[in-house]
């Protein structure tokens, strides 16, 4: 099982802050593709023009990052702090 969190404009567009997946692919990139394949707004967010950043266990992670049971994956738009 992995836990997925969505932040800021992503959370609003997807209408979801958090979900858990019992079955999950083996990499972060494959997870993005799986979410995009849900269609509708999921496809717009995960296969669209705008950048979506990702963190695994609270550290920025690239698409080839492997996923394992218990991981926390965060998806969010480019950051705007400071």
């Amino acid at each position, binding site marked *: 099982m992995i836990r997925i969190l969505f*932040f*800021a*404009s992503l959370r609003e567009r997807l209408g979801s802050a958090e979900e858990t997946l019992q079955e999950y692919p083996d990499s972060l990139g494959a997870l993005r593709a799986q979410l995009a394949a849900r269609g509708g707004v999921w496809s717009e967010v995960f296969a669209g023009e705008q950048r979506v950043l990702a963190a695994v266990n*609270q*550290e920025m992670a690239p698409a080839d990052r492997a996923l394992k049971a218990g991981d926390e994956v*965060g998806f969010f738009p*480019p*950051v*705007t702090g400071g």
Partner: protein
Amino acid sequence: MHIEVRVQAEPLDALAETVPVFSGNTAVGGVVSFIGLMRDLNQGDAVATMTLEHYPGMTEKALRAIVDEALGRWDLLGVRLIHRVGEVRPQDPIVLVAVASAHRGEAFRACEFIIDYLKTRAPFWKREQTADGRARWVDARSSDDSAAAEWERKS
């Protein structure tokens, strides 16, 4: 060495929070601080309030990693990095970066480095409410990416 990294929902008293970075350390020869304030105008629209969201847990780790990288690059005697979350109004301090060192050069460079990296690496998002009642997420600026990339080049 004085290090403080904090995210807070309470108002930030930026001037009072700067003092502990040098107070009591007689080796400090200079302090440079940056205070980021909320403005009342963005992209031509009057902004009434702004709400800062973050990723609890990751935010603190990301801020600490940025401070650690600064400590690796320069000889510093103190760093305080404090960021607001929640609702802010024009003139409210959003972020304080305070850096102490023996000489000014290190403190100036480290302070700018920390705010430049924070702008592209720390998971905060601003949502603004305009004076005419609209709400919108603030877009990331490409000039912030350029500033951070310039430090990558110097590493």
